């Protein structure tokens, strides 16, 4: 059984990478300004570099592509971890208000340092995810405080609590952003809707440490995540420190989420869709699930961003909206399928 399963994983990963290659090809060549594959390859490999192509590839398309990929990956595996920890198939950091919490903290940070040009300040950008982490953790703490009852999390109530928390944080964010000066406000408003138009290598650098640190931590805990699917008492009897593992897993996910949110705003439903698709492809074991899930997240965001910037050209739609147009029907489908009747 495990043999066959890992073969399936390999097949899925291969297919995923092939699809990714196609989307990267379209992403880099098509747009306002068409480039041929040769142009792109030559630019990337620094063969007869031309300033025009350099500008397009290195300043516009490549950073945006990398950010889309990183965000997709981070949100997807964070989503898988949160779903695993809460044993709730409907959980998604976006729906649960963790995005909103991280976003609110980041806006608070922007507001506090108003005027001191945030766009270029290195330290400022690098510390943004840190604040996001605090906000996301606060949201998660609130979530647990309100949805925890009789020693367990009620799945549906948790979602509703998350919705309430995110509208609360959303209002707070709106309040703060309206108090900012016009330039910062503009930036915050675009950023909040979940778009990656303002791609820039500095942002990528600010995300990287989080990914390098937290992804291995999560990947090493796939077995723990498997065990979390059991009853809490069972987990304890297997010698796992339930509370400690829970906090570590949640903090890892929140850290990833906040790194993503600090760059691309709140993009919901990736953390919901990717794990479900991955589970259908390779089954529920997290050792296989997490990598596949990450790849699917990458694909989701990259392709959605492609749609967001091409279908609506010359206007551009926030990628978050494209994803939620796909995500909502899927969420409803999941809701129909889930057996447990509410309350």
């Amino acid at each position: 059984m495990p043999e066959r399963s890992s073969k399936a994983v390999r097949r899925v990963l291969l297919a995923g990478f092939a699809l990714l290659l196609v989307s990267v090809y379209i992403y880099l060549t098509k747009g306002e300004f068409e480039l041929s594959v040769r142009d792109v390859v030559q630019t990337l490999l620094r063969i007869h570099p031309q300033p025009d192509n350099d500008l397009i590839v290195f300043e516009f398309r490549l950073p945006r592509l990398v950010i889309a990929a990183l965000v997709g990956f981070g949100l997807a595996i964070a989503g898988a971890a949160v779903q695993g920890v809460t044993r709730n198939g409907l959980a998604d950091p976006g729906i649960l208000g963790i995005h909103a919490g991280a976003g609110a903290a980041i806006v608070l940070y922007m507001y506090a340092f108003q005027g001191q040009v945030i766009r270029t300040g290195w330290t400022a950008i690098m510390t943004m995810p840190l604040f996001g982490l605090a906000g996301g953790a606060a949201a998660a703490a609130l979530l647990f405080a309100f949805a925890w009852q009789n020693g367990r999390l009620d799945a549906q109530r948790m979602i509703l609590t998350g919705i309430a928390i995110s509208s609360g944080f959303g209002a707070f964010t709106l309040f703060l952003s309206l108090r900012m000066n016009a330039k910062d406000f503009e930036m915050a408003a675009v950023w909040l809707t979940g778009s990656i138009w303002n791609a820039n290598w500095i942002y990528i650098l600010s995300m990287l440490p989080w990914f390098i640190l937290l992804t291995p931590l999560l990947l090493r805990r796939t077995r723990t995540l498997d065990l979390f699917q059991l009853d809490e008492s069972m987990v304890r009897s297997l010698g796992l420190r339930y509370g400690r593992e829970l906090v570590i897993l949640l903090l890892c996910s929140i850290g990833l989420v906040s790194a993503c949110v600090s760059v691309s705003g709140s993009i919901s439903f990736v953390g919901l869709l990717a794990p479900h698709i991955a589970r259908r492809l390779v089954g529920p074991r997290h050792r296989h699930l997490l990598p596949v899930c990450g790849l699917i997240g990458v694909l989701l965001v990259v392709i959605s961003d492609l749609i967001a910037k091409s279908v609506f050209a010359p206007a551009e739609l926030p990628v978050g909206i494209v994803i939620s147009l796909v995500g909502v029907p899927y969420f409803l489908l999941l809701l129909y399928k889930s057996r447990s009747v509410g309350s």
Partner: protein
Amino acid sequence: MMQRNNFTPLLLGIAPVALLLLFAVSIRYGAKPIAASTVWDALLHFDAGNADHQIIRHSRLPRALGSFMIGAFLAVSGALMQGMTRNYLASPSIMGVTDGSAFAITLGMIFLPGASSLEMILYSLVGSLFGVLLVFGAAALLPGGMSPVRMAILGTIIGTFMSSASAAFAAYFQVSQNVSFWYSSRLHQLEPALIQLALPFAVIGLGIALLISRQITILSLGDEVSQGLGMRGWLVKAAAMGAVVLLTGISVALAGKIAFVGLIVPHIARFFVGVDYRRIIPCAGWLGGLFLMLCDILARFLNYPFELPVGVVTSLFGVPVFLYLIRKKGGGKHA
């Protein structure tokens, strides 16, 4: 069960006094300081050449009246929905009604541009009907979908979908700016002419609500009871839906989406006057109007001299109550 009858006359007695008080505050204070005597003059001896008089007559007066009306409409809609579905989380904004309304307005602006105000109101009504039908339809199809928590999730998610779809349509046809104008709450831009146009719809909606309040009480006791009493439940439900569609539809047409009023005010009303909807509906109307007026006044001062969107202020009160309701009544089915 304790019937708190004695609060009803007290509440209905205090409400007009509070209304007058808030009304006075609302037209007296704002971004531009205007002396009380000038306000008085503007009301009694209007001088079209005086800028202050213009502000009072054309900005503050419609705003004060409009916020009271809209608050009342939303609260009555919420009370009707909560009674009818026996769902303590039901309300126009959570159940996707306001999103449906704004969605229809978006489509109207794209495909039938140059619509008159009256047509806008009609679009809005059609949209809220669509939203109600979609959410209730989905809930009816879903096993256990009528349970409060499930229905609230469904409503919110369908609402998200409709607002995403509106954003996509708006971006595609490049009318985003006009659409966001309809989407955000904007009590400060109420048009007197639009309020007048909306009044007949509102009167019909409120009339229906009051007429069926007795039947709503019976419905809120459960299907067994209402059937046992020989009531035609579907008729009452249809009438209640009609009233909700009318009241919510014109609220959105007038002032965009305003969250939480329809959720929390009926609960406050129920706390004071008990479980009889003959009392809850009028009290919710009064309290809702007063609540939104108060929020509107706060919205002017929390960020003085700039204004906050009133939605931020209503969330300030709404989110804690929402969380409390989820926590407190999690499993209960009854409104």
